[in-house]
């Protein structure tokens, strides 16, 4: 604080803005004309940058790594501590979701248009990537309050910057933070913001869709619908069933492949979670095109929803066509025998049908990737299958569980078990040639082989598991 009385404050008095590997702020002073010190200047700044705090372009942000997020959060904490020290007379109001939206709405007008666009873009992006980190929001809230406070101070005084005195470096730094770090996806996250701004975004989409301005492919896949349900899917994936996924490297980045999994859970949540797992965690964010049984098209709402997220009927021509289009196809050879499994039969695979999935894979020479889903078989405790109720309701099966139908809708809420999805070593099919699909012996052998692999994977995972719930 020795520069308190100096009329001009140079940028060299600012500490380097970079974060060290230890996660603390760099202790060196910044180089003139740059927010970084001589060490970090070359490391952090991109080549050709003049070092001035620049207005970020509205470019697509890439999802940052977990450690980068932590570093940024710590950096923000440091910054807040310093700001507190520098302006003891100002205390930011307590965090509240409503106020943060109001503050943003007020101050967004003062930002340059590219910056506004960037904020909006990032918020919309946040709806997809969905971060529910309240702590980071608190940090953002403090910074925004300080930002407004400094701006007011600068406007009050005729000498502007000069009157800010010792606060000027922080003002500049804060501007830098607003421009760069604060606008980063990691800092602009939080449920309430996202809800507020995503509502407008969704309303825009709905308005546009009401005029018929949207597109589906020949299968009925609707990417906008998928984007709309993605936060819900990832909520179930991350927080409700806390799914951990192993062996994602076995799924190719591109090209045809077939996932073969165990089916369970009365309702096809397992298919949805496999889709979410590959969509969120696979490097090329592939979409699993599930094949469903022929009882699904007759079910209202479910049929059109599944079709919109890329499902299609399990018929050989459909599967072959999808694989020939180099898609990642998901099959549940147990069919409704698997999904309607009773609790006492959990993790025991039902029969694998007539091996139609093997024929599809052989015909298109697509590798078969066995997968085991553990946890989904315990979301309902089904104790009985009622044939008469199924016939009355026009459904393929009707499960009586410990909670359904006695508790009504409450009985439909699945239990929050902890899930594990394992993707196994791919089983190649290209050594046999496409004619092998008509060889019944090979088809039945491979069906049994895949079934054994999936069953073994389930047993291996169950042996490691301590409890269904944690």
């Amino acid at each position: 604080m020795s520069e308190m009385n100096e009329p001009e404050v140079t940028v060299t008095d600012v500490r380097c803005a970079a974060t060290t590997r230890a996660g603390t702020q760099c202790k060196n002073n910044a180089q003139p004309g740059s927010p970084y010190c001589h060490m970090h200047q070359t490391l952090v700044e991109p080549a050709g940058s003049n070092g001035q705090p620049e207005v970020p372009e509205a470019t697509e942000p890439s999802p940052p790594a977990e450690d980068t997020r932590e570093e940024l959060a710590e950096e923000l904490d440091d910054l807040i501590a310093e700001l507190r020290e520098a302006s003891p007379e100002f205390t930011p109001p307590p965090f509240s979701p409503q106020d943060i939206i109001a503050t943003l709405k007020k101050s967004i007008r003062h930002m340059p248009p590219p910056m506004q666009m960037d904020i909006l873009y990032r918020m919309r992006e946040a709806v997809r990537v969905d971060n529910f980190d309240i702590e980071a929001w608190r940090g953002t809230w403090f910074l925004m309050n300080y930002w407004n406070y400094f701006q007011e101070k600068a406007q009050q005084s005729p000498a502007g910057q000069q009157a800010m005195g010792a606060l000027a470096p922080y003002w500049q730094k804060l501007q830098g933070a607003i421009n760069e770090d604060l606008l980063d996806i990691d800092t602009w996250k939080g449920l309430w913001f996202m809800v507020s701004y995503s509502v407008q975004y969704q309303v825009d989409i709905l308005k546009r869709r009401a005029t018929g301005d949207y597109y589906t492919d020949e299968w009925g896949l609707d990417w906008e619908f998928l984007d709309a349900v993605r936060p819900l899917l990832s909520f179930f994936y991350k927080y409700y069933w806390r799914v951990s996924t192993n062996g994602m490297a076995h799924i190719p980045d591109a090209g045809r492949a077939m996932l073969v999994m165990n089916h369970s859970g009365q309702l096809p949540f397992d298919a949805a979670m496999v889709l979410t797992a590959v969509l969120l965690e696979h490097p090329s964010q592939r979409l699993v095109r599930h094949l469903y049984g022929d009882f699904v098209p007759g079910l209202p709402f479910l049929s059109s929803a599944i079709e919109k997220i890329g499902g299609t009927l399990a018929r050989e021509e459909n599967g072959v066509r999808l694989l020939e289009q180099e898609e990642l196809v998901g099959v549940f050879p147990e069919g409704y025998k698997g999904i309607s499994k009773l609790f006492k039969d959990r993790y025991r695979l039902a029969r694998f049908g007539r091996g139609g999935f093997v024929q599809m894979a052989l015909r298109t020479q697509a590798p078969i990737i066995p997968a085991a889903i553990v946890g989904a078989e315990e979301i309902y405790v089904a104790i009985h299958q009622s044939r008469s109720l199924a016939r009355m309701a026009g459904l393929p099966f009707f499960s009586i569980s410990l909670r359904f139908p006695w508790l009504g809708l409450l009985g439909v809420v699945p239990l929050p078990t902890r899930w594990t999805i394992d993707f196994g070593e791919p089983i190649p099919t290209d050594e046999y040639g496409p004619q092998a699909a008509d060889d019944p012996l090979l088809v039945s052998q491979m069906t049994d082989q895949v079934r054994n692999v999936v069953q073994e994977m389930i047993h291996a995972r169950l042996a490691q598991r301590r409890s269904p719930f944690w």
Partner: protein
Amino acid sequence: MTTEKVVLITGAAGQWGTRLAKRLVVEDGLGVVALDDQPPSPGLAGLDYLQADFQDPLIGDLLATEAVHTVCHLAFRPSVARSEEAYAHNVQGTARFLAACLAAGVRHVVLMSSTAVYGAHADNPVLLQESHPLRGSRRQGTNRDRLEIEAFVNGFYRQHPEMLVTVLRLANIVGPTADTPMTRYLRSPAGLTLMGFNPLLQLIHEQDVAAALAQAVLAEKGGIYNVAAEPALPLKRLLALAGTLPVPVFHPLAYLNNSIQEQMVFEPDSLRYRWIADTEKMQTELGFFPEKSAEEAVQALRAAKGEPLPAGGYRPDGSRQSANDHSYAMPLDEIMAHRQKARERETTTAAG
């Protein structure tokens, strides 16, 4: 005159016959003879028009004396309720007419069918190929008759390979002036749908229907072809594009209640399950590519939504496709004698 390929169009006063005749008459090397038992529609002025019934016993003689090469058999009476009169006209009439064509040495017959013959079923594949078994519903007269004709034609062209038969299975036809079940559905202010179901539906623009028929006549390729425009539209998107309000009905009610089914225009299954035809064969073998996309077809219909339709289009009661249910057919022997005289006069004037 003799080098011309003579094309005879039955049902020429109907909406498809008129459009096809107008399209073919400008082609080089084609002689177009239009035939219908109704007075010619306004679009047919100046054409060689025979006001006769295709079911006339002397039709074979006419085909032979006119040296007809290609027949486009478009005379068809749509009917919602199954009607014996329409069946006799559509199915038995077509069977007799095809036999007459064969006897008269006609080389090529073009028939118009519908993708509804595949039927909407839960286990339909994503794209129905022409070889897929026909499992269409027989509850409505139109589709029952189409299925019967297809069954007859299937046996016919295997027994008589010397005569080419082309069957075009057309998707739902829409357009500004077309009058079909789909245009009636989309032109109404509100359309019934089944709650929770949003199947894809295929469309074809009315101009492309005539273009496809013309292409079938010109290409002279036998076989069955699905004809539809890209892309298939989800029902809700289709209604939104057409400006029609979707009114969802709980689906078991639609199956039980007949008055709801009458309101729906379509059978409940057609608005529940997928029945999308594969158009690859149309593109690769028939060489036909629709000019208008499905969206353009709906937009054209929407633009003309307030305007009244021309009379004599789609008549769901199985009556003749004309303003009044009468046959104005003249006896074919008189027509043939008249034309013979005219031809003799022409040759004498040419010689003199």
